């Protein structure tokens, strides 16, 4: 299991760093936020990303992909995290693309995957219904009708759910909680309503409600009642990418903080010479290194289709999340008064980090999922 980027992946990392630094720096996010942009990302930037082939990275070649794997995808997310760059790469490619790749019928793949990859369409995944991530607690129902199914219920925290061309929706279709089925609901379907949920990170997040929504049988992805397994695999890919974005954001924030410690003078000395701050900064470095290893192991496990991939992903989301708590909190505190003003980017990082932590399962969620008494693995 390789825990470091190979040469190709490193080249991708470098390209992505440069691209986001130039085309989608933090100032771009600030501008989107200040004008209250509902879409939450720049379509032109997304278009360029697809042209660079990043939207094709995770898919097999027969589906029009590059089969470059999730370690490569991680490199892109890490770079995006560094610059707080917004795009539908997670929602439309990693999450919805995965569901279609893993469970979609040939016609479904033909209808959607190509357009997702070129960016001419995009889908959003609608899973959660409660305050915290709980993909096994679905109460949105899909009841069989003469012509297909009727969907009733609502979804929250739908990432990039506003202005999407459709949603992949997890619905309960049986008596038991694990009887979950996945449906594609195209935009414009009668009975679908989309509301923006304006979060602290100023991205595109939606509540989507479904009232007597009629869907045709062809819109079912995979087998009836068997959607949970597909969903979990897609979610794990998304979680690993979120962990990569978090890691990138935290590393960038840490660098900014170190720079501040080196240059900010108080009581006639750089504050970075105060030993108490030095030790705390050292602990931040320690956590970043431990988180980095956990992240790389998760990406590698996904690429190897490892039996322990789910645990590895949860370890990563947990550990990176824990690290992010420390790094984001300390970054603000060490920047002092100026760190809590909106003028500095520190706050933007802090707020995005906190949303990334919550998305698809916070540290508490992944702790229980990540630990299994499996000594052979270490």
């Amino acid at each position: 299991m390789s825990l470091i980027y190979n040469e190709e992946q490193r080249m991708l990392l470098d390209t992505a760093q440069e691209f986001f630094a130039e085309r989608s720096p933090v100032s771009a996010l600030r501008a989107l936020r200040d004008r209250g942009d509902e879409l939450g990302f720049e379509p032109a930037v997304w278009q360029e990303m697809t042209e660079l082939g990043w939207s094709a990275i995770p898919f097999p070649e027969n589906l029009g992909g590059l089969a470059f794997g999730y370690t490569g995808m991680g490199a892109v997310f890490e770079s995006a995290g560094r610059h707080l760059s917004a795009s539908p790469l997670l929602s439309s490619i990693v999450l919805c693309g995965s569901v279609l790749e893993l469970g979609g019928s040939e016609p479904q793949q033909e209808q959607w995957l190509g357009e997702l990859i070129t960016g001419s369409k995009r889908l959003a995944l609608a899973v959660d219904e409660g305050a915290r991530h709980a993909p096994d607690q679905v109460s949105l129902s899909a009841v069989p009708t003469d012509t297909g199914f009727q969907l009733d219920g609502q979804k929250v925290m739908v990432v990039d759910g506003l202005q999407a061309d459709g949603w992949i929706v997890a619905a309960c279709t049986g008596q038991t909680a694990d009887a979950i089925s996945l449906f594609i609901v195209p935009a414009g379907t009668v009975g679908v309503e989309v509301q923006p949920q304006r979060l602290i990170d100023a991205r595109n997040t939606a509540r989507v409600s479904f009232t007597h929504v009629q869907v045709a049988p062809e819109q079912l992805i995979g087998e009836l009642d068997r959607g949970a397994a597909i969903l979990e695999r897609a979610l794990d890919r998304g979680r690993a990418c979120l962990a990569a974005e978090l890691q990138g954001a935290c590393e960038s924030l840490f660098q900014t903080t170190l720079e501040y410690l080196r240059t900010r003078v108080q009581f006639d000395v750089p504050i970075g010479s105060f030993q108490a701050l030095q030790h705390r900064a050292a602990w931040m470095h320690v956590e970043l290194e431990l988180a980095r290893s956990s992240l790389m192991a998760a990406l590698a496990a996904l690429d190897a289709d490892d039996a322990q991939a789910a645990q590895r992903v949860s370890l990563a989301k947990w550990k990176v999340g824990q690290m992010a708590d420390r790094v984001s909190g300390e970054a603000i505190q060490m920047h002092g008064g100026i760190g809590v003003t909106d003028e500095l980017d520190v706050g933007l990082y802090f707020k995005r980090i906190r949303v990334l932590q919550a998305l698809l399962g916070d540290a508490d969620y992944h702790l229980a999922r990540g630990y299994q008494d499996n000594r052979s693995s270490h």
Partner: protein
Amino acid sequence: MMSSIEAFRADTCAWLEANCPASQRGPARDGELVWGGSRVEFLNEDQRLWFERMRERGWFCPDWPTAYGGGGLSPEEDAVLQQEMKRLKCRPPQINLGIWMLGPVLLEYGTEEQKQRLLPPMARGEVRWCQGFSEPNAGSDLASLRTAAVDAGDHFVVNGSKIWTSYGDKSDWMYCLVRTDPQAAKKQEGISLVVLDMHAEGVEARPIDLISGKSAFCEVFFDNVKVPKDNLIGPLNGGWTLAKRLLQHERSAMSKFGDFCLPNHFDLMEIVNRYLPPDRQTPSDIALRARAQSLALDEQAYNLTVQRMGQQARAGQDVSGIAAIMKLVHTEQEKQKFELLVDVMGHRALGWEGDEFGEQELAISKAWLLSYTQTISGGSSEVQLNVIAKRVLQLPDAPKGGAQ
């Protein structure tokens, strides 16, 4: 026969009962207290009545001499008034930093002319004061301030800027630390205290946006602002001593303020129980609940420590060891509490605006983000820890030229 002080208590009590409207009793929420000043506003008639009645009696500043618009009460009488107001839960009729902080310093250090000019309008609640101490590049190192006041004959010309001035945009006057001798051997020695008119030419106050959104804090810019020399308080270059005195008054004022202000207090356990359905006892729910319990117990320990400090002070014991921990403990506990709430509430605590979130949910998000400012402003946690280590624990300074 009653002693005169007992008679005073009876009179005071009767007067308060008769004059303090029922709506002006009990703790007030944020925004429900009156701020005195030229642009004073009242939420309702009761507020105005209570404000005017107390003003007429001189009880905005009950222990000041009547010559300066005060109530002329003896320290004993003032204590009785405070006790009775507390007992009857009367709100302070106004909040005014001038009265609570600058006033006592003026009484101690001001010239007779300054007292006559500045105190009576203050005592009538006609002037709203703000404080100009912190500067953008100074941070915890207050003495490194750079706002310069240059001697120009009968006045100073002030240039520079101040930061973290609460309600700078709504205030009439500022008391302000300025550098009057940039050559002084020690940087503390070149500082003076002046008062200045916020409506004067060249003064601009801009509210600061925080990570939590809009705030009461302002950055205040001075562009060749003329300050008459008789607005210098105390000796030239002697401002540092007065500033320390002012900060002492700030601490007691803040505690007075705290007594009457209902903070945005969120009931931790109530919220935990609301967002973690008791019928769903996942391990993560249980772990969150245990964290909540431990924060609740820590808060009890803090509250008991506040009580103990009061008892020790009344018993004439040294409380410096306890007093030094108060700000640190309270603000760090609040931060932990909100972090827990965010973990418990999930995305419901991550809302920024809009009607997809409840009023309390948005208030918690803001309060959570604001809690990060509390461990920085008013003496950062690091400064508090330094103070404890050096003053309370008497740990040594690093010697000059020492390694590490």
